C-alpha cells in the first residue's frame, strides 16, 4: 500500500518535473533559436573559412582546404602579441575591480531612489560617442592639456601622459568601468545584509564581516564583472591606438589587419577561432574554480 502511494507520488513528481522542464525549454527557446541563427551559423562560416585559401587578389577560395592558417598560430610573433594583450587585459581588469568595488558598495549603501540616480549617472557619460570621449582624453593627456599645464604652473616641466601605457590603461579602465560596476552593484544590492548585521552582533569587526560574508557573497558579481571587462579588453585596439599611439600590435589590431589590411580572411578566421577557443577554455576553467570555492 505504501509502495503504491509512493509510486503515485513519484509519478506526479515526474510529470511535474517534465512539465517544468518543458516550460524551461520554451522560455529558453527564443534566445536559443536566435543565437543559433545569428551566431552559430555565421561562426560556422568563419570556421569553414579558416581552412580555406587566399586567392592572389585576396578573395577566399573554398577549395584546397588546409591547416596552413592554423600552423601560423604557433609563430612567435603571435605569442608576443597575445602575451602583450593578455597582460594589458589582466591589469585593466584588476584596476577596474579595485575602483569599482568600493564605488558599487557605496551606491548600495544609499537610499533606493538615490541608488538608481547614481547608477544612471554612471551610465550617462557612455551615451556620448566613444570616439569623442577618447578624443577628450587625448586632449586631457596631451602635452598641451590641462594636466600638463597644471604641472607647468607648479614649476615642473611639460607632462605628456599621452602615448604611454598609462594613458592606454586610463582609457581602457574608463571605457569598461560600467561593465564592472553594474554586475557588482546587482550582486551587492541583493545580498542579505542581515547576515552582516548578525556577524557584527557577534562582535565581528567591520573588516572581518566584509571579508567573510560580503566578499564571498558578492563573488558572482565579481566574476561577471571581470569577464565583461577582461574579454573585450583582450580584443581592444581602438583605445590603445588612439591613446597609446599603436606602437605595439595588439591582438584585436592584428586580427583586423588580417581581414582588412592583408585581406587574408583564412588566417584572420583561424586567429579568431584560436582566440575564442582559448577564451572559452579559460572561462570554463574560471567557472570550475569559482564553483568549487563557492
Amino acid at each position, binding site marked *: 500500500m505504501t509502495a503504491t502511494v509512493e509510486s503515485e507520488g513519484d509519478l506526479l513528481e515526474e510529470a511535474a*518535473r517534465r512539465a*517544468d*522542464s*518543458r*516550460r*524551461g*525549454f520554451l*522560455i*529558453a527557446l527564443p*534566445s*536559443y533559436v536566435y*543565437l543559433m541563427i545569428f*551566431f552559430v*551559423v555565421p*561562426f560556422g*562560416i*568563419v570556421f569553414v*573559412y579558416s581552412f580555406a585559401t587566399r586567392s592572389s587578389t585576396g578573395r577566399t577560395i573554398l577549395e584546397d582546404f588546409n591547416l596552413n592558417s592554423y600552423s601560423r598560430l604557433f609563430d612567435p610573433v603571435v605569442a608576443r602579441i597575445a602575451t602583450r594583450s593578455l597582460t594589458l587585459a589582466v591589469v585593466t581588469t584588476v584596476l577596474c575591480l579595485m575602483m569599482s568595488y*568600493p*564605488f558599487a558598495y*557605496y551606491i*548600495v*549603501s544609499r*537610499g533606493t531612489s538615490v541608488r538608481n*540616480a547614481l547608477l*544612471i549617472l*554612471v551610465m*550617462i*557619460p557612455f*551615451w*556620448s560617442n*566613444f*570616439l*569623442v*570621449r577618447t578624443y*577628450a582624453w*587625448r586632449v586631457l593627456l596631451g602635452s598641451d592639456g590641462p594636466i600638463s599645464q597644471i604641472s607647468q604652473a607648479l614649476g615642473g616641466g611639460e607632462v605628456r601622459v599621452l602615448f604611454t601605457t598609462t594613458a592606454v590603461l586610463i582609457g581602457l579602465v574608463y571605457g569598461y*568601468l*560600467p561593465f564592472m560596476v*553594474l*554586475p557588482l*552593484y*546587482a550582486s551587492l544590492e*541583493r*545580498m542579505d545584509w542581515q547576515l*552582516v548585521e548578525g556577524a557584527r552582533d557577534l562582535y565581528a569587526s*567591520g573588516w572581518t564581516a566584509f571579508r567573510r560574508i*560580503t566578499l564571498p557573497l558578492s563573488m558572482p558579481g565579481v*566574476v*561577471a564583472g571581470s569577464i*565583461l571587462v577582461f*574579454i*573585450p579588453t583582450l*580584443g581592444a585596439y581602438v583605445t590603445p591606438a588612439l591613446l597609446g599611439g599603436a606602437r605595439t600590435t595588439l591582438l*584585436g589590431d592584428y*586580427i583586423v589587419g588580417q581581414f582588412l589590411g592583408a585581406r587574408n580572411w583564412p588566417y584572420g*578566421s583561424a586567429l*579568431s577561432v584560436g*582566440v*575564442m577557443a582559448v577564451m572559452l577554455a579559460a572561462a570554463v576553467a574560471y567557472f570550475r574554480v569559482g564553483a568549487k570555492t563557492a
Partner: protein
Amino acid sequence: MSVSSAVRPRSPIERMLAANAWLVFAFLYLPILVLIGLSFNENKNVAIWTGFSTRWYGEMLHNDGVMRALRVTLIVAAISTVVSTIVGTMAALAMERFRFRGRGALDGLLYLPIIIPDVTMAVMLLLFFAQASQLLGRAQVFGIGTITLSHIAFNISFVAVVVRARLSLLDGSLEEAAADLYANRWQTFRRVTLPLIMPGVLGGALLALTLSLDDVVVTQFVSGPGSTTLPVYVFGLVKRGVSPLINAVSTVMLVASMVLVGVSLVFQRNNARTG
C-alpha cells in the same frame, strides 16, 4: 530599504567610501566636461582651440548626414535594447530556475557573443547576410534591419549575464512561498520574481543600450546604403579631422538623456507618493 548595515553612517569608512565615490564620478565626468567644452570650439579641428563659438549647434541641424545617422542610431538602439532585454531575461530565467535538456548548451552559447572579438563577429555576420541575401534572391538586404539583428545578437548575452548574476542570489524561498500560497508559475513570476530581478533587468537594458549606441565595428560591416549610424559616421570622420560638430551632437544627446532621467525620477517619486 536602505542598507544601513552595509556601512555605519558617519563612520570613517563611510567617509572614505564617499570620497572614493566622488573621485570616481570626477574621473567619469572629466572627459565629458572637456567634450562639452570643446563643442564650443570655433576651430574646425576640435583639438585646436581658437575661440568660443556656438555655431556648431546650429550647423548640426543642417547637416543631413549627421541627422540621418543620428536617426538610424536611435531607432536601432531602441529596438535592439527592447528585444534583447526581453529575450535575454528569458534566457537568464530559464538558466537559473529550470532544468531542461540543452541547458548546458545554452549556457555555453550565451557566453560566445561575449568572448568573440568584435571584428570576427562583424565579418561572420557580413558573410552570413551575404549568403542569406543570395539564398533568398533579394538584392538589398543590408540596412537598418541587419544592423538591428546584429546588435540583438550580442546584446542578448550581456543582458543574460547581468540578470543571471542577480538571479543567482535569490534563493527562491520567496518564490516557493508564493507557490505554497497557490500562485501558479506565471503569477509567481509577475508578482514575485520580476520585481525582485528588476534592478538586474534594468541594468542589463542599460548595458544593451550603451553597447548599441556606441557599436562601430560590427555596424560598419553590416550596414547598407543610407544606414550609416552615428558612431560609424564619426569613425569615418576621424580621417578628415573630427570637428566640434560631433561634440555638439554628443552634448545634446547627453543633456537629453539627463533630462529624460530627471523626468522619470520625478515621475517615480510622484507615483510613490500617490500610488
